[in-house]
């Protein structure tokens, strides 16, 4: 007896269904396009800058007055410098933004990758195994949460960076970026791990897990083949929401002087510098600030859209 006729629903994989939902979200699509543009600009920064005839390093004293403030309005915006120039040096802000985005995105994306990797593995492991493994991972999370992470990050930077160099990371920016990535991963994994643990805890109660166990599946099979595939949605969602957070944090670090070294551009560094020119050159605050805000916003919106598409919740909520 075949039951073909009753199979009325058209076959769509869960990913296809999510994509259909995502496409309906106009805001998310715009944000996705925007983020993609920024990522592309950053990726091809040298070509983009060459095309626009701008350069992030060359000084342009002609645009500055005697104390180093841009001598034309709106932070010295002109055809040669579309978003104006940096006070003190006359370097092109647009070019510095494009190059700065490289740093931000590299750090944010790599750190997100490792954070997610660590969080997912430890979280699922804890949730699936429970018992002692869960206990140890849980206590580690408690411990990490108890520390003032920002303080530790900035106070440990001077010791950890040379250690990275001695471990073979090139001195200067690579070591600094590696440190930030490492430290973000170290403190960042807990959140995603807790989400994953919760999910794994509930998944392990599902009968398909018992079915695989009853057939003799090993732990690694259970975690990677049975449980993990069910967590792609939350993984993608949380990873995509981690990126904007990390972009902001990277900027915060460079704002505090932990970021890349001169003359490499960084968004946070520009903002830290802009404080001294509040009154005379507010454009220098607004342009990098707005750029940072828009990039973080765009990534956040994409993440949100993904969440709505992949993990639709609250649809059944009762109107009160």
């Amino acid at each position, binding site marked *: *007896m*075949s*039951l*073909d006729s*009753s*199979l009325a*629903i058209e*076959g*769509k*994989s*869960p990913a296809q269904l999510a994509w259909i939902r995502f496409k309906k979200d106009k805001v998310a699509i715009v944000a996705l396009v925007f983020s993609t543009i920024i990522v592309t600009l950053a990726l091809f920064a040298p070509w983009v800058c060459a095309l626009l005839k701008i350069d992030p390093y060359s000084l342009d004293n002609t645009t500055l007055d005697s104390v180093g403030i841009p001598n034309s309005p709106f932070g010295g915006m002109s055809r040669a410098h579309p978003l104006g120039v940096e006070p003190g040096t006359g370097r092109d802000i647009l070019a510095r933004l494009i190059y700065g985005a490289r740093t931000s995105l590299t750090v944010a994306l790599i750190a997100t990758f490792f954070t997610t990797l660590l969080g997912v593995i430890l979280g699922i492991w804890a949730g699936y195994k429970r018992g*002692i493994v869960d*206990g140890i991972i849980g206590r580690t999370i408690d411990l990490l949460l108890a520390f003032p992470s920002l303080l530790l990050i900035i106070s440990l930077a001077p010791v950890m960076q040379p250690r990275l160099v001695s471990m073979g990371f090139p001195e200067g920016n690579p070591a600094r970026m590696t440190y930030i990535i490492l430290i973000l991963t170290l403190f960042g994994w807990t959140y995603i791990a807790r989400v994953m643990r919760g999910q794994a805890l509930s998944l392990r*109660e*599902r*009968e*398909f897990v*018992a*079915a*695989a*166990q*009853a*057939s*003799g*599946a*090993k732990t690694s*099979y259970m975690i990677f083949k*049975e449980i993990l*595939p*069910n967590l*792609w949605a939350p993984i993608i969602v949380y990873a995509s929401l981690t990126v904007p957070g990390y972009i902001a944090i990277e900027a915060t670090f460079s704002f505090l002087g932990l970021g890349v070294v001169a003359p490499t551009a960084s968004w946070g560094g520009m903002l830290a510098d802009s404080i001294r020119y509040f009154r005379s050159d507010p454009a220098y605050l607004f342009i990098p600030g707005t750029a940072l805000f828009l990039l973080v916003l765009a990534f956040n919106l994409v993440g949100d859209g993904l969440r709505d598409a992949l993990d639709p919740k609250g649809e059944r909520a009762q109107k009160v």
Partner: protein
Amino acid sequence: MSEALEVKNLVKTFPVGKKGFFSKPAGYVHAVDGVSLAIKSGETLGIVGESGCGKSTLGRVMTHLLPATDGQVLLNGVDVTRAKGEELQKLRRTIQMIFQDPYSSLNPRHTVGRIVGMPLVVQNINPAQGRKKRVQELLELVGLNPEHYNRYPHEFSGGQRQRIGIARSLALEPKIIIADEPVSALDVSIQAQILNLLQDLQKQLDLSYVFIAHDLSVVKHVSDRVAVMYLGKIVEEAGSEELYSKPMHPYTLALLSAVPEPNPEKVRQRILLTGDVPSPINPPSGCRFRTRCWRATELCATTEPPLVQISTNHKVACHFPGPTPLPN
């Protein structure tokens, strides 16, 4: 008929109220408390009882999904509860499980082909004709279109999903299948389909079933023998005919009388038990049913009645067994 599976004095407890690494549990749930059973090959043993009486736990210990606290589960003379590694892996091929919830028992991210083929993969079995072919055969066997190999579970209805689960349990060509409430989550019209399928498969493949359910009428349809559980213990065990026509344990009596009859013309006399099933953490002393039993005396509080053979095909654990329905 030979004995396919034998359960001897099986005990399973769960610690409760354990909060940290170092703390002691506040108590233990006596989920299964000294159960002995035997399943002959080709036979269906029904296990009924109210929620929380330990049916699922019993099933899970039998398949080594849970370690036993004490006792044995003998399969071809090997104790499943102590088996490890290779040996356990082999035993798993003989004894498989069908689950209650057709929604949670299939991995939503896997295709039907992958779900049904999973046991072959984890057991590293490569059938001569290839895994895909074998899976398609299985699908056909349970009445599904083999073309559905690449579809996802969410594209199927509850009944069809349950068929997929059954196909999966057959992949390793087991001898014994533990079916834990396989139809409770299905609609009536679908339940019939699945029950019929299970019966057909049994004949075709010479399977033994342990059929767990809380619904006495379902059990009646499929079982050769029925065991009634109450708070982790078997209180009565008999051939189906015998049990339904001549129940001896007051609990069985009450259970049978409580089943609503789908016939408005027929008014059955009903034994209304008072109260609920007591907590399995602190089960009553003596006979566990005494707190709800109309026949209970002092004796029941002090002495636990053993499960005794009262006729060739009938065991009961009661100090005052008898078919008298009415409390008086």
